[in-house]
């Protein structure tokens, strides 16, 4: 696959060197959160981990085209880097990993990586796959009806594209030309089931036409290419031109979750081969070419971020657990709850 990185400069995309370093920092943070989470899992401190490694490029690239405080984010469970871009901190992520009372997503109610934050416009999602897509369409409908200029972005894996809700949501969004971008992070496996057993088409993006809007395939390991295609999709949505389906081809380096064993369905050779396309390595290559970073800075930055994450992990670990007396709270609205329709 051609590297977008070598074809177009970041300036042409409207990104400064500083922007690139922020993007890089977010990608590294996501990667190091993964490593820390697995370490904690092995120590018995984190019962369940959903890794992101391998997806940092497509997540940061697509999420970076949105605007905090203006746009709406509907991530799925692998989107550590998306929620970091949306404004969550590593501490937020680890509060969730440890199921603490202050976990912003659910107060320790949901499994880790089931994101949500009203403050950050990250919409709460569940475990059943693809159920957030109709929500994205409904939010986008409300955005349009209320004459707002927000854009709704919704992320999912290629397995989700087999779900009925996926079809129903894209169909609805297409009919009403809604301001929504659908982002498929295609890592070739839905847990163990490979793409060829998931669909008869080569590209998920090819289906866009069936719903009356464009589909675009992008190299998901090329953060700038992902940004480029997402930026265009967001501009289309904001201009009232309707949805876009983006398919970022990528790979996950770890098993599906800490409870999965990917040796049962992928060879080690395949995984090692895929790591040659590591979005972080490729981005570092570009940053070096541009004179924005060198090996010493890469190392120093990693150490700095790791130290910061470790500090936040300590804070999260020492935070209080949910009080069992809160078990029956929030089944229905309570006095003082935000009224969703008054936002």
């Amino acid at each position: 696959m051609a590297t977008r990185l070598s074809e177009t400069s970041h300036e042409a995309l409207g990104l400064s060197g500083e922007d690139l370093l922020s993007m890089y920092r977010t990608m590294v943070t996501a990667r190091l959160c993964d490593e820390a989470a697995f370490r904690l899992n092995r120590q018995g401190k984190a019962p369940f981990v959903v890794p992101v490694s391998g997806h940092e490029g497509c997540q940061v690239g697509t999420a970076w085209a949105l605007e905090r405080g203006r746009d709406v984010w509907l991530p799925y469970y692998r989107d550590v880097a998306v929620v970091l871009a949306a404004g969550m901190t590593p501490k937020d992520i680890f509060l969730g990993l440890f199921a603490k009372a202050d976990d912003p997503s659910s107060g320790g109610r949901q499994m880790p990586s089931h994101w949500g934050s009203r403050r950050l416009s990250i919409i709460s999602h569940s475990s059943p796959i693809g159920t957030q897509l109709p929500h994205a369409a409904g939010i986008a409908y409300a955005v349009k009806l209320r004459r707002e200029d927000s854009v709704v972005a919704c992320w999912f894996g290629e397995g989700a594209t087999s779900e009925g809700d996926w079809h129903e949501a894209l169909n609805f969004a297409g009919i009403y030309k809604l301001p929504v971008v659908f982002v498929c992070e295609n890592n070739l496996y839905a847990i163990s089931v490979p793409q060829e057993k998931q669909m008869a088409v080569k590209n998920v993006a090819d289906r866009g036409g069936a719903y009356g809007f464009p589909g675009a395939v992008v190299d998901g390991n090329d953060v700038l290419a992902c940004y480029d295609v997402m930026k265009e999709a967001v501009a289309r949505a904001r201009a009232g031109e309707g949805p876009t389906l983006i398919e970022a081809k990528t790979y996950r380096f770890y098993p599906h979750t800490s409870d999965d064993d990917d040796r049962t369905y992928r060879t080690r050779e395949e995984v090692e081969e895929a790591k040659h396309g590591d979005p972080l390595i490729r981005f570092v290559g570009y940053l070096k070419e541009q004179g924005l970073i060198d090996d010493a800075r890469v190392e120093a930055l990693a150490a700095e971020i790791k130290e910061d994450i470790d500090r936040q992990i300590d804070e999260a670990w020492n935070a209080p657990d949910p009080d069992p007396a809160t078990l029956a709270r929030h089944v229905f609205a309570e006095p003082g709850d935000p009224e969703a329709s008054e936002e």
Partner: protein
Amino acid sequence: MSEKNVVAAIHDALRDEMAADERVVVLGEDVGVRGGVFRITQGLLEEFGEERVIDAPLAESSIVGVAIGMALHGLVPVAEIEFADFIHPAFDQIVSEAARMRYRSNGDFGLPMVVRCPWGGGVHGALYHSQSVEAFYGHVPGLKVLVPATPYDAAGMLRSAIHDPDPVLFLEHKKTYRLIKGEVPDEPFTVPIGVADVKREGDDLTVVAYGLMLHQCLEAAERLQEEQGLSAEVVDVRTIQPLDRETILASVRKTGKAMVVYEDNRSYGAGAEISATIAEEAMFDLDAPVARLGGPDVPAMGFAASLEHAFIPDTDRIFDRMLELARF
């Protein structure tokens, strides 16, 4: 006050709510140009426009899923599922998503939304236009499940549902739509969610029912009075979840005898929960075992009139069972 049937009462309440609050939108199959297959949404498209009255694609899961999204972003959607029998594809969106949104986000997100749908038999609807679905959803915390049976209650409870900050499943018994008429105030009013209503006072036994069965129980109670001189108190459940246990128990404690009537399959139906509540809470006030009359445990009612009649508890069977209990 005006006399209205259930269809007109629901239509008028919905129309008034849309006029009063521009956040209220309607979506569903055939709700726009056609005005709904039961004419509930007639004229709304003309009055409020295509943006607020949405002829949705024929896809129940996304009708509910899109409504959830709308509720998350400042609208108050009233979704219509054309028949309760077709709601099953939306089960996941209702149960996993709508009912759990507030709980799973620890109170961060709420969903002010209503899903309306016609339910129940007696209209030659056969297997797929006659179903009762209240027990499926009554089992799910986080949802409110309403089963109004009169024009007054339907109008007042729909308004409450639209004002409610949480998701409400609003079930309209389709046989009552044009059969049941009653006085409805012309000015806005509400009927609270979660409050049962004693529709007929009596001393000899309590009959608990909802939907079409309420009307058949009232008819049977009149006959029992006229023919046998026995007085039955009839309690209209009105809300399946949250269930008004107090009103039901107060009546049972007064009469000492309880009968529960519902047209859903008998086993695990809403009447089972009501019966269990009475057995648990009022055992020592009872002079007879709780009587439970429900639909048989066969998949559904048939299209043939003979099969349909054999399925739904009718006034005669209700009368006989009431008499048997009263004489116990």
